[in-house]
């Protein structure tokens, strides 16, 4: 029990910080990705060049990216959040883009024929039809970000990664687990929440199609 007495408070702090990193970076990444995905879906010809370029970017290891940002921005939370947000973008972007591109042309033609403006078509037909795909992207981003947030500790910015790093450095398995288990639980809980969200916002008429 003394273990928890020693680390209990720090654990709660760490979870809060970790969660803050995850939520803020996923939120920022999601908004950017959604907008970018919509823009790219309007210009599929360019998207075919841009998407692969972005996916190359995705392969840069997170450690490298955080390290480089650290050099420019210093040890502030923004460094972590920006880095994580950048990584959170891609899954959402990819799913938004494919989700929008997969909307059957007949719906778009019908919308046009009904006198819907391009914006109305996007908001009332295309985006609702793409929501299942977009939410899948959001779920992926969130789960990835929970694990990437561990890297924050690398530049001394806390989160659950702190326990893991200290644990590894001091060869203390209990400490490693103290960081790893809450992180895993966080990923599970967040993905369950997103599943709940999916039920809430995926249009009812689409559910029977799945």
């Amino acid at each position, binding site marked *: 029990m003394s273990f928890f007495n020693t680390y209990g408070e720090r654990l709660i702090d760490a979870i809060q910080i970790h969660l803050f990193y995850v939520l803020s970076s996923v939120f920022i990444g999601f908004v950017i990705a959604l907008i970018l995905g919509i823009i790219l879906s309007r210009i599929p010809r360019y998207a075919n060049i841009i998407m692969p370029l972005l996916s190359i970017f995705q392969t840069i290891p997170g450690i490298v990216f955080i390290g480089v940002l650290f050099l420019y921005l210093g040890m502030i939370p923004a460094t972590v959040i920006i880095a994580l947000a950048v990584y959170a973008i891609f899954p959402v972007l990819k799913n938004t883009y494919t989700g929008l591109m997969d909307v059957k042309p007949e719906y778009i033609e019908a919308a046009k024929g*009904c006198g819907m403006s391009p914006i109305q078509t996007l908001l009332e037909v295309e985006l609702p039809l793409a929501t299942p795909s977009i939410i899948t992207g959001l779920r992926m981003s969130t789960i990835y970000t929970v694990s990437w947030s561990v890297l924050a500790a690398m530049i001394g910015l806390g989160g659950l990664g702190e326990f893991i790093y200290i644990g590894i450095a001091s060869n203390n398995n209990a400490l490693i687990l103290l960081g790893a288990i809450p992180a895993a639980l966080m990923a599970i809980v967040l993905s369950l929440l997103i599943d709940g969200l999916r039920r809430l916002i995926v*249009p009812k*008429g689409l559910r029977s199609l799945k």
Partner: protein
Amino acid sequence: MIRFENVRKKYGDTVILDNLSFNIEPGEFVVLIGPSGCGKTTTLKSINRLITPDQGKIFIDGQDISEVNPVKLRRKIGYVIQQIGLFPNMTIEQNIGIVPKRLKYSKSKIKEITRELMEMVDMSFEDYAHKYPSELSGGQQQRIGVLRALAASPPIVLMDEPFGALDPLTRSTLQDEIVKLHKKLKKTIVFVTHDMNEALDLADKIIFMEKGEIVQMATPDEMLAHPASALIRDFMRKSSSSADSSDLTAADFMKTKFFSVYKKRSIRECTDLMARQHIDSLLIKNDDNTYAGIVTIRAIKKHGKSSGSIGDITPHVNITSNISENAKESFDKLYATDDNYVVVLEDDNTIAGIITKTGMATAMADTLWGDMQ
């Protein structure tokens, strides 16, 4: 009124519309028909500006549509497509209300319109309004597709092969309904199809197109009587033989009341039977019930003897049809032979029935003027 003036459209080097000029009068049901690639759909889509012509002008009620905002233009023109395109994320009520909502009708007004329209096609508002398209059958979905086009009571409705993907029975029901709706609502309807039967059934005027040009623009009667080209004649023939009558088989027209005897029956018994039933021939069966042929009264006279069995007379082998054979082929056989009927056989060569010339006449009358019974 819709007026096309020298409308041209090219994709690359392919001419899609070649100097097209014609008028459609208000309230007319006009069907555009022709082989694929003839430009009928392009013509249709240029009316609501889904396609913009390269040259020429299109006027609706005297106004050049290229000067009208396309979004506003389309709200005054109903549009029905073959793939139906009901929005799966919206209920039936929301789908029907799409255009009225854009035109800022009040919610209660939209509901009222939806209810009225649904009643016109015998779909109850209570049962269906809150369902999603995926819960409806194809035919029901396309009914809603048509209603969606009518919801804001546009003076013009465009239909791009709306019934092309439906099964024949549903198609003919919807065709009837659209004729009824047209009579009731007096809209100008421009309808694209490649099915000549559909065109003949629905149109006030048929525009037959080929290679981006109008080959003939005429009423169905006129086109039937004086098709302007071999292609049109061909189209009419193909569709008249390919349509509903194509599913009918010999079994649908045969009479199952006929007189057959085994070979061992005596000739006297047979002549008595013929006299009693006022018939001049009998179907002869082998002992295993398979068909052997027919014997006519003339053959019996020629045989000369009234003793012995009917099997002594070589039966005349009449023309036969299989029970599952296309009715038209059976008719052709009957038409070609001197005999008064075709014998229809089961797959095991037993006798199923006969098709007589009277039966054929009734069947033809049915297809021409509807069910006579």
